[in-house]
């Protein structure tokens, strides 16, 4: 079946099978930032935005993206780079495999929440797993990036 999608501000028409998942469709478009981590819908690595909302692309059938906008980290390069500097400064980035999904969730949170507390941040970011670093460095980086505490 054919779907029309706006991927990172670029309108495209794609041929997808009914049971294709968005993670595969996007990777076929060369968007390799979209990672497949757990494959059981619980690690958050495959997060992209669907109409601005952070969404698990491993659990979203591609045809559901028809008529919608899809944003991957390639589409928010400037913001992602800015946040990446905060991550690096806190030593919160090691292998980097989880970073694209994590960063997409952080940027979505910035758009959705104003002045979040530690608890709000942790709640929003639950479901983004990182095997390398633990989460304290990430929380410090997020708070500095959002300007909510040191």
């Amino acid at each position: 079946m054919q779907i029309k999608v706006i991927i990172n501000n670029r309108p495209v028409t794609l041929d997808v099978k009914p049971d294709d998942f968005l993670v595969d469709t996007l990777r076929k478009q060369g968007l390799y930032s979209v990672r497949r981590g757990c494959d059981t819908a619980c690690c958050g690595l495959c997060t992209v935005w669907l109409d601005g909302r952070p969404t698990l692309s491993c659990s979203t059938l591609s045809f559901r993206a028809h008529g919608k906008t899809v944003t991957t980290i390639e589409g928010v390069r400037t913001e992602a780079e800015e946040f990446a500097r905060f991550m690096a400064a806190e030593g919160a980035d090691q292998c980097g495999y989880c970073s694209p999904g994590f960063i997409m969730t952080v940027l979505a949170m910035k758009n959705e929440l104003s002045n979040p507390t530690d608890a709000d941040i942790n709640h929003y970011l639950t479901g983004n797993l990182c095997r390398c670093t633990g989460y304290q460095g990430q929380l410090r980086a997020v708070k500095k990036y959002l300007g909510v505490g040191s």
Partner: protein
Amino acid sequence: MFILNNVAQPDTLHDAYRILTEKKSNTVLGGCAYLRMGSQIIHTGVDLSKLGLHYIKEADDCIEMGAMATLRDVETNPALFKYFNGVLPKAVGSIIGVQFRNVVTVGASVFSRYGFSDFITALMALDTEVELYHGGRMTLPRFMDRRRAKDILTKVIVHKTNRQAAYQALRNSKSDYPILTVAVSRLEDDWKIAVGARPTRARLAVQAAKRLVTGGTVTSDVIGQAAQIAAEELPFGTNMRGSAEYRRAMCHVLVKRAIAEVAACK
């Protein structure tokens, strides 16, 4: 591995139901988040996206949640915050992560009657009805007891009352599946106690709720007795997350906490 051969996107519920019942392996597509974890072959998936079911509406006497509203919509809806001490947003808040809750839907969560559902447990403790295209409207407890049959759940209706409610769940870690879920509510002397993840589908502890009918305040003794009755009257089972004995013991604890929380509400 799951296989989906065709997708139908009907414009009317009538057509959706016709396609659904045309072939045994035709299925309604909800959020689809669990499809990849199972293995089934679906001839035609019926997608409800064109039926305008993605809404949460507050009316004078109820709040209606369309089948295609997501659990994240439930979590962030202002009306659902206002009523029943925000028990519905609270109950869904621990389900994996924001990205997952942006995908999974109200209709699929309720229609599938998952034993581990935090959402159903909380709904059971309220005055909740479901509307099925073929089966019509019925209370949620009645729907939970029905035999599995093909149908389309179009909406979940929660009647607005002054019920005070509380939610408790036990999990090994924050976003894991629950080992036990408990929701308790009170409208004057009418109490409801729902217990889920036993590990089977949520059920009301009717005898325990009766113990709380005192015509006035509930003492800590009464709360303890009601919790004990709940643990005794409900069946519990064993799965990889916990044994029946452990669940029974924890049921006593969580029910007690939830009743105490509701009893403390002004």
